[in-house]
């Protein structure tokens, strides 16, 4: 008798929550499809160029190296040695490091430090953000089979 009661109870429990379950599944599937789409987007062939652009307050930053060459956007796929650049954010300074196919915020004086905790990023569409300093690092992949001449 107790068994049947238990079964009835569990059945009732599930019936009551059926719509909640449907909602959960629907949202999970929705999010999963976004996740899968993103993974496909992140696919990068080794011969495609990986380019990182540093924006400050939605404008491309002017970053120069020791020779006075402008290095932003960084063509990460052509960098061999690790290099560090100190840049001025909106509120504090930050140090950006680049190496072959990777970029990271090496250090920052912002309070949250989320940007530093991200570490080295090597995938396209994976941004690094320092909201405190209004710094946004965007990484994209350029197919080498598409060329612009002019």
């Amino acid at each position: 008798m107790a068994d049947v009661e238990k079964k009835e109870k569990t059945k009732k429990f599930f019936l009551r929550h059926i719509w909640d379950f449907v909602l959960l599944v629907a949202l999970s599937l929705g999010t999963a499809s976004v996740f899968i789409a993103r993974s496909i987007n992140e696919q990068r062939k080794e011969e495609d160029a990986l380019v990182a652009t540093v924006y400050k307050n939605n404008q491309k930053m002017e970053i120069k190296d020791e020779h006075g060459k402008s290095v932003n956007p960084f063509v990460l796929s052509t960098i061999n040695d690790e290099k560090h650049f100190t840049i001025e954010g909106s509120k504090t300074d930050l140090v950006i490091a680049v190496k072959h196919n990777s970029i990271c915020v090496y250090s920052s004086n912002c309070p949250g430090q989320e940007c530093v905790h991200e570490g080295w990023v090597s995938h396209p569409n994976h941004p690094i953000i320092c909201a405190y300093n209004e710094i946004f690092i965007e990484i994209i992949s350029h197919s080498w089979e598409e060329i612009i001449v002019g």
Partner: protein
Amino acid sequence: MDTKARIKKLTMVAILLAMALVLSIVESFIPFGIPGVKLGLANLIILLSIYYFGFWIPLAIDILRVFIASIVTGTFLGMGFVMSISGAIASFLLMYVFVRWIKCFTSVGASIIGAYVHALAQILIGVLYMNSWGIFYYFPVMALVALITGTVNGIIVEVLLNNSYLNKVVASTKKQAETSSN
């Protein structure tokens, strides 16, 4: 109006606000890729308040807790604040709709949608701030966490709603007010 009922109501609301505030501040210490992204643990309290107190009081609790939490953590009027406020309002509205109008969902469903919309609203504000869809990168993880916390919170709320002691306490803040106004 019975003063005792009013005092009880005020006390209850204050306690709920305090609990929501504590949860808000605690969750601000959990880091994410972007600053200002919150897990939505306080939604538990807000949802409970919706069941107990209707529309304006829970909304007030929600907005107040965001304000006070942001002042305490020092992110007032920053990007994190705007994200929290929009997340709070959006999730509140949806939870209210799910509790009062769409009757097929229980507190679990309401909590799930509240947490999910909270995450979604924050991401959209982030996109607006940074002027780039790149922020969306963080959405799948946020949504997954939101779904989990939403489910857990919903179950907790359901358990609390069935707690006879709590129900008596809440009822007492309303009942006496009704009888005394006669």
